[in-house]
């Protein structure tokens, strides 16, 4: 009976919102930026689901309302882009070249690293489109015969990793230019990177959001091409 109560849709939705609010509150309270809301929320929800033996698919289904909001929030980035239209016009050339270089490095590094670590081709095909936002990455993976579930999680992990450590890595690499920071965050860590970039500043957020879209287009073209020419003959 308790399990039935706990696995009802309002409770599942409330779990997401409640844990997220708690995570945001914890970060605001402690003032530690490294306490990413994602990093705190995910283990708490995983623990809750395992503890009460609630299937992950049930939780995901109950929360489809929240997941659906990803679409409108990507559309809303159009306004963020518009608000930075002058900067984007001014730096269009650096940003476009970054996207071309970034998507190429993204695909090539995955290929070389998978070889180096002797990973199964399942991982290679699923990881190739990882430098894009989740929905694009999954479509691209499907096209080249990759496992879309692994792709989705890899992209989420890239986002979490970049969202948490991105600003630190960029500081270590001496990348300070807000446009470079935004481009790096959006290109490498998509939505979560952009969420973090928006926290760093409006300009960083705008460039980051712009890069998600441009990386999506670049990778959607590049991955199938790279896969047919370089990867497929060696499998």
């Amino acid at each position, binding site marked *: 009976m308790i399990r039935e109560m706990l696995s009802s849709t309002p409770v599942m939705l409330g779990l997401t919102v409640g844990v997220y609010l708690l995570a945001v509150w914890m970060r605001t309270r402690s003032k530690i930026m490294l306490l990413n809301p994602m990093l705190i929320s995910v283990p708490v929800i995983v623990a809750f689901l395992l503890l009460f033996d609630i299937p992950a698919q049930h939780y995901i289904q109950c929360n489809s309302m929240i997941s659906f909001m990803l679409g409108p929030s990507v559309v809303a980035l159009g306004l963020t882009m518009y608000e930075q239209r002058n900067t984007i016009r001014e730096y269009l050339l650096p940003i476009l070249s970054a996207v071309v270089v970034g998507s190429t490095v993204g695909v090539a590094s995955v290929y070389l690293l998978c070889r180096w670590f002797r990973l199964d081709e399942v991982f290679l095909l699923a990881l190739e489109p990882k430098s894009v936002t989740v929905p694009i990455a999954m479509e691209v993976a499907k096209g080249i015969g990759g496992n879309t579930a692994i792709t989705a999680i890899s992209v989420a992990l890239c986002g979490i990793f970049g969202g948490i450590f991105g600003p630190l890595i960029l500081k270590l690499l001496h990348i300070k230019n807000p446009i*470079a920071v935004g481009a790096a965050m959006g290109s490498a860590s998509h939505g979560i990177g952009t969420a973090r970039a928006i926290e760093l500043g409006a300009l960083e957020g705008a460039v980051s959001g712009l890069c998600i879209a441009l990386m999506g287009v670049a990778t959607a073209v590049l991955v199938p091409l790279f896969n047919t020419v370089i990867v497929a003959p060696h499998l």
Partner: protein
Amino acid sequence: MEVIIGFGIIMAFLAAGECLSVFMGHFVPGSVVGMMLLFIALTTKVIKPHRIEKVAHFLTGNMTIFFIPAVMGIIDLWGVIKMSWLGWLGVIVLSTVCVMAATGYTVGGMSALQHRREKKGGRR
């Protein structure tokens, strides 16, 4: 009312983007097409920014929560991942650092080049 109008406009652009995406054979996801359409509509002054500001800022400012449910799929895949999780995580981390460095340095280099050219007065 302001919120409903704002959300309605954004949903309309999402719907239009989704339709165009189907037309293009799902080459680019609908939300990304919708984002481009919204940007164009704002630039050409078809949509006034103040109409959607409230809703759009709420959506972009809280993007993280919209990702959380999808990430929970990790529970079901644990069996597959357990076997080569270290290499898998290694590829994710190293490749992400590679992409960050590549894009960051490219932008830095290109804007330095652009500044130098503008200083010389040699604008194209």
